[in-house]
């Protein structure tokens, strides 16, 4: 079982990997670790209680996997975006519309996270883009370990291009799990409440970009766009905001421009690191 994701023990599946967890056995927790000590060496009452300093982040092992992923992605010149939202925000629709516009220009790949079914990965593959589905079983989020295995499965499919990671639809749990992405993008549809940034502050705080989707429906709704943006900026003064409709295509250019700018920034950062190193 993955050390970072206890909530899906034995139920996580990465498409194409029969035993997705066998590569990192040395990182895995030993359920029977206490049996490795000297057998029966302990005489009750003779060894006094002692304190053991730990000072370890509980998510440290996830963060270590995330760092590995980030280094591998940067090395391959892949811009990785972690897309998070509540279920039904239109993430997959936005993604397929994005892929259709970029696929002739850039190498692309998608990692799809859902509790069950490969429906979304199939929707992605219909665009001709390589996709790997991760089913988290009972789990509520993707973690860096699962994503590492999905990257193995994808090979270099997005080298020099863009990898989209569609996280499990959930505005709470994915906030705490770094996957090794370059940017986290939170997607909020205008059919949801404009106070969602205040209700789920951790997610909006951890994101670099907020995309308001389904804006073609605004004339029929009471959704206050400016109030929503103000709420998001209260949580995260640095957050960028885009408004678009994947259905009509309005605003899609701004999103593609943002991706292009993010790619240019990552490439420049890579060149600087190389020059220093």
């Amino acid at each position, binding site marked *: 079982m993955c050390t970072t994701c*206890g*909530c899906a023990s034995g139920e996580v599946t990465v498409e194409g990997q029969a035993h997705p967890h066998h590569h990192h056995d040395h990182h895995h927790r*030993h359920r029977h670790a206490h049996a490795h000590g000297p057998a029966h060496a302990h005489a009750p009452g003779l060894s006094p209680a002692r304190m053991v300093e730990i000072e370890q982040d509980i998510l440290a092992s996830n963060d270590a996997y995330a760092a590995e992923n980030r280094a591998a992605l940067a090395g391959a010149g892949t811009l990785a975006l972690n897309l998070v939202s509540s279920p039904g925000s239109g993430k997959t629709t936005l993604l397929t519309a994005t892929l259709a516009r970029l696929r002739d220009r850039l190498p692309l790949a998608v990692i799809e996270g859902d509790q069950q079914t490969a429906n979304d990965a199939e929707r992605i593959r219909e665009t001709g883009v390589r996709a790997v589905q991760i089913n988290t079983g009972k789990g509520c989020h993707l973690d860096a370990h699962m994503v590492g295995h999905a990257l193995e499965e994808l090979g270099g499919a997005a080298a020099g291009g863009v990898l989209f990671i569609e996280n499990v639809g959930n505005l709470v749990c994915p906030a705490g799990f770094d996957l090794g992405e370059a940017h986290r993008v939170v997607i909020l549809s205008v059919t949801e409440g404009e106070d969602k940034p205040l209700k789920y502050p951790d997610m909006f705080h951890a994101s670099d970009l907020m995309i308001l989707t389904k804006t073609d429906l605004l004339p029929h709704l009471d959704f206050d766009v400016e109030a929503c943006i103000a709420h998001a900026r209260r949580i995260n003064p640095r957050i960028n905001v885009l408004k678009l409709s994947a259905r009509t295509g309005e605003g899609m250019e701004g999103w593609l421009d943002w991706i292009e700018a993010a790619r240019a920034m990552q490439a420049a950062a890579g060149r600087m690191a190389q020059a220093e190193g």
Partner: protein
Amino acid sequence: MHEMSICESILAVIEQQAVAQRFRKVSRVRLEIGPLAGVETEALRFSFDAVTRGSIADGAALEIIAPPVTAWCMPCAEAVEVAQRYDPCPRCGSHQVQITGGDELRIKDLEVD
């Protein structure tokens, strides 16, 4: 957030440490959990008992230390304390406040036999 999986991670660290530091029973676990860590401490306590049952930490007391939420107010150019992410600076009322601490999620130490 998924307190059950957090407890599984805590137990994993404890079991690794048990091998490295040669102990066989844990009587107390001290955690440092900031108010912004996204962890419900009551749910964590409940999960901790369930996850550690039959393990090296079975019956261990769980002590949770909550550090304050600290922030840097840009207009004041000073460190301040706030309660939540969207709170304004308590001195000047500005929202140009960068959170600097309060999202800790750490195992501090263990009392072991």
